């Protein structure tokens, strides 16, 4: 349903390509992990997929329609974005934040109705944040904030969620919370997701499909258990790693062993 077709991107005409000929597809119901080292172009690729940047060449298609020709409102009804961190300039309550997810469904002067409140409360319940409804957003912990922002994305009733390093600023406990939440939403609600992340073990535990990116190019992609190999980890990070199925958790784990080049 979301497709990048030989996409390249540079921020300015005289700077090098950040994304260099990437093609990938996010299928309905998939949970795709976009992996790569710092500066590999993950975040830029996610921006291209979300349509907040327009490719220098190539196309991004949402349900077969070229993204550059769709308005933000039309895109937002089908696809939602979850940033790495959300900092608010003003104080809003949790419910207000989640209701803002309904923006693209409301007319110019329309006010949220009962249906919007129902969807917002459903989304809060699905992310385990229903009890926070009346709290001020800025008083929440990092993990709670991230779950509320995901709830807002759900309330947007979009089919696709794009998440930019959703666990990067969270501690271990919250990382597991958010990972479990994403996995549940994908399995039980059928929400399609693409996640950019550094965290190989997060990707291994929840992603069905992986896309490995280095210097703006795809070096491998496919089902997680096929793509996540020691050879690919080495090609991606210059790190020798031990990859095996962890007995207790049942998913693959990556244990870095040593750095190959300084």
């Amino acid at each position, binding site marked *: 349903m979301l497709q990048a077709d030989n996409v390249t991107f540079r921020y300015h005409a005289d700077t090098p390509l950040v994304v260099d000929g990437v093609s990938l597809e996010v299928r309905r119901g998939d949970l795709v992990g976009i992996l790569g080292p710092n500066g590999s172009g993950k975040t830029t690729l996610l*921006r291209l997929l*979300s*349509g*907040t940047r327009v490719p220098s060449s190539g196309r991004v298609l949402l349900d077969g329609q070229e993204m550059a020709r769709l*308005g*933000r*409102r039309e*895109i*937002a*009804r089908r*696809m*939602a*974005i979850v*940033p790495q961190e*959300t*900092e*608010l*300039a*003003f*104080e*809003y*309550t949790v419910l*207000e*934040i989640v209701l*803002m*997810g309904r*923006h*693209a469904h*409301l007319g*110019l*002067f329309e*006010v*949220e109705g009962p249906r919007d409140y129902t969807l917002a409360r459903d989304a809060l319940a699905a992310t385990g944040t229903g009890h926070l409804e009346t709290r001020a957003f800025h008083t929440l912990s990092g993990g709670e904030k991230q779950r509320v922002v995901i709830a*807002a*994305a759900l309330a*947007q009733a979009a089919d696709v969620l*794009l998440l930019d390093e959703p666990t990067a600023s969270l501690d271990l406990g919250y990382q597991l919370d958010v990972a479990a939440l994403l996995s549940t939403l994908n399995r039980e609600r059928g929400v399609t997701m693409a996640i950019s992340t550094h965290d190989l073990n997060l990707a291994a535990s929840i992603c069905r499909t992986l896309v490995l990116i280095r210097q703006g190019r795809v070096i491998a992609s496919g089902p997680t258990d096929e793509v996540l190999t020691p050879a690919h980890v080495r090609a991606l990070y210059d790190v020798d790693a031990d990859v095996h199925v962890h007995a207790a958790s049942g998913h693959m784990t990556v244990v870095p062993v040593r750095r190959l080049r300084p």
Partner: protein
Amino acid sequence: MSLRRRLLTVVGAFGALALLVLVWAPTVGSTSIDLGRVFDTSIPWADNVDAQIFFVARLPRVMAGALIGATLAAAGVVLQALMRNPLATPFTLGVSAGAALGAMLAIAFRLDVGTLGVSSVPIASFIGSLAAIAIVYGLASSQRRGLSTNVLLLAGVTLNSFFSALILFVQYLSDFAESFRTVRWLMGDLDIGSYGPILAATPFILAAFAVFAVLPRALNLLTMGEDVAAGRGVEVARAQRWAFFSASLATGAAVSLGGPVGFIGIVVPHLVRLMVGSDHRVVLPAATLFGAAFLVLCDLLARTIMAPLEIPVGIITALIGGPFFLWLLVRQS
């Protein structure tokens, strides 16, 4: 409580306050007047001192205060959301400095650009504010698709100090009387004395408010960052442009009318947010009404506190606003 009921309650309460202040303020002043005589049409205008005080001295002043207070408070709300910075004011982006430079050039060089019952100084200052808006917009939009709020802020701050330098330079060369007039203008004063300038400023302000009316939901989302706003369905670059131009134009018109009356654009939005929360659909109308009441009350103080001397209202708002601003800074950190 649903938004519609909250909006009704808030607009009802602030509307009642504004109405009360607007009706009461013209009846109060250093000279006591007899309202019966004011509205007694059987007395010839030339002999009716009460009516002259009411209709020439006080009413335009109260109307200007309401218009300027409402405008600066609303423009403050819009610009704070646009800049994602609660400490931004309508004057942060250099509009008032442009207006001040225009006004001062008109005073110093005795420019004669008056037209349609409006004298030279407000017209020159409005032209100055338009020039400042054009410069700041040109700089901030040259780099990327949207408006860079960082460049907006830097360009505004730089323009403010550059224009201030020009003002000081021309002041240094002007004679005593011209300098005095410029300084008085810079203090912010609502002693307008006729309805012409108010009528002239109103269309620009109304146009800006028409834009403000469609912005609030986009403003809510812009405070969460540009990418989030775009992801939620806001055409970010367009919303930013509309917000910038409408708020700047309104500020330019208000400053041309009464001078750079300080602190309204920050004190009122913050007090209102403390009372009604941050949803711009509620904040914007509430700040508009409260801004009108607040500036008229400040001007009432200015007219009566040292009666029969009338001090410029900008001094009162600064005396209230300065400490308030510091309190906000401390509270934020």
